[in-house]
């Protein structure tokens, strides 16, 4: 999983630096000097890093799973790992919660979204009781209200 992440992130960096180079080329002379001065070496280094990551991944894979000699009519053994590991699923779940919080804030505002988010998260992710979840959510929301709306006289 770590190898796939390394290569995935390295590809991401190559794409990002390439984007900075391609878009930067389209600007006038002065605005593009510094972006190109930074992005062209960045692209070169990110390609180097991608190459390093791929070589390192292959080397590690060979050490962990040396390939046995196969007969001509034998089918190769498939990958035994599940398509999406437990850890990946958990990471995605956490980010979905965070993005849901952001969407809620955008459409419903802080004072509705925060207590709903806290109750739901503490109950369904952290597996706390309804009582504790509601207590923490209510206390925090009250604190936010007192500090920002009453104390600082700002609205969120």
């Amino acid at each position, binding site marked *: 999983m770590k190898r796939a*992440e390394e290569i995935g992130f390295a590809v991401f*960096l190559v794409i990002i*630096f390439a984007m900075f180079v391609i878009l930067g080329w389209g600007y006038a002379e002065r*605005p593009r000097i*510094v972006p190109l001065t930074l992005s062209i070496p960045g692209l070169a280094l990110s390609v180097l890093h991608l190459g390093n990551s791929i070589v390192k991944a292959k080397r590690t894979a060979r050490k962990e799973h040396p390939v046995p000699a196969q007969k001509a009519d034998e089918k190769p053994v498939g990958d035994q790992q599940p398509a999406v590991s437990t850890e990946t699923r958990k990471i995605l779940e956490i980010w979905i919660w*965070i993005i849901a919080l952001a969407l809620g*804030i*955008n459409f419903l505002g802080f004072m509705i979204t925060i207590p709903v988010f806290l109750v739901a998260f503490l109950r369904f992710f*952290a597996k706390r009781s309804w009582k504790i979840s509601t207590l923490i959510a209510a206390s925090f929301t009250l604190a936010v209200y007192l500090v920002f709306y009453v104390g600082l006289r700002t609205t*969120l």
Partner: protein
Amino acid sequence: MIEALWDGLILVFSWPAIGYMSIGVLFGLFMGFTPGIGGPVTLALVLPFSFNMDEVSAIAFLIGTHSVVNNGGSVTAILFGVPGSGPNAATLIDGFPLAQKGEAGRAIGAALAASALGGLFGTVVLACLIPILRPIVLVFGPPEFFMLAILGVVFLATLSGDNPLKGVLAGLLGLLISLIGEELIVGTKRYTFDIIYLWDGIKLVPSVIGLFAIAEMVDLLLKGGSIAKPDKERELSGPWTGVVDVFRHWDILVRSSILGVVIGIIPGLGGDVACFLAYGQAAQTAKKGEVEYGKGNICGVIAPEAASNAKEGGALVPTIAFGIPGSGSMAILLGALLIVGVTPGANLLNEQLDLTFTMVWTLAIANLSAAVIILMLANPLSKLTFFDGSVLAPVIISVCFIGAYMTTNSTGDIIVAIVLGIIGFMMKRLNFSRAAMLLGLVLGRIVEQNLFLSIRIFGAGFIYRPIAMGLVVIALLVMGWSFLKPVLQRRNEKAA
């Protein structure tokens, strides 16, 4: 001058100035605890309350509030990996790993002691420099700013640990992201994809929140358990051990304080640079056998904290002497001073010298007060690191989103925090230096702006100005040393 010094002290302790200062200190600490609400935002929030105060009370209130915000931000940076503002991110690099080892108390004690002593140092320097301010401030121009920013970029090499390639990539990415938005000289909109929010560029506060706070909270939720996972066989040290550590590493304290004051005096460079430069110079002088920087070295907390508060005294220098604010916070303070009838300039250095020393004394007393308050709370606060992360994290993430939103009251800042949070999380998992990326974000615009100004004013030979040349030499030495050091270490190990 001695008389003005004494009069300034009496003014600070007079009523209601001392009362307002106390309120300001408590409020500043509380605001510092909230990610994203630091520095300029805090001052902007309290500014209206100062309009009806007399000039001494207004000075005591505003400077008392502003000077302690970073202290509160350091505590959250250490305890939760959530920096209160940009300068606190440098403290987080070693402060949070210390908390993970169960040594949050020690880290907080060191941070506060370094901050208080650094602040005192900056105050003393401010007091001593008052008679000779003008030539010092005027000697720095765009070439010197450019080279100082480049020096900060060179320090990226010291933040990348074992893999310089990853560190350089992170730094370059930060530098490029800082260029998003309207170009300062011609006005070209770069990398904005016709999104109006991006015209102003990527803001620092949501970036810090995303890269560090949100990434750390996601990591905490993934790994489960509490923030602190101490080694059961080691006895945990408390805040007073951290205070003693500061005196043991007095050389780092002094060097970082000097750096902080110098950077603070220079208008326009900003406090974030001081903290990272201080961290970088401390990492450069790491001794053999010490805990590696980035893995819980107490000097990695002492250096940025000392610089962070020392720069406050330095930043007041151009603000009160010339009316040239050294940073966003100083610009707000300058506005407040003008509103209450205090005009920066020659007056403050002659007839109203007692007011100037009121500011100096307020800085010193506020810093000491904040240090005492947090030291008393350090042990109970450090117990928070033993709370279950799955309960702590959603609360902290909610606070982070509030802090990000308050930057410009735009949901775009929340989106930036999430995007950089995802990138920061991957960088943490894959050992890329987020500090290097943040430093790039801070310095990118400074580098570009001052490069073009230098060429326009001085031509291509701007690099030959004495101070700029001196900084070039230091940058080359630092670069050379960062490549030579591992080679020498390997040779010594082979010989041993």
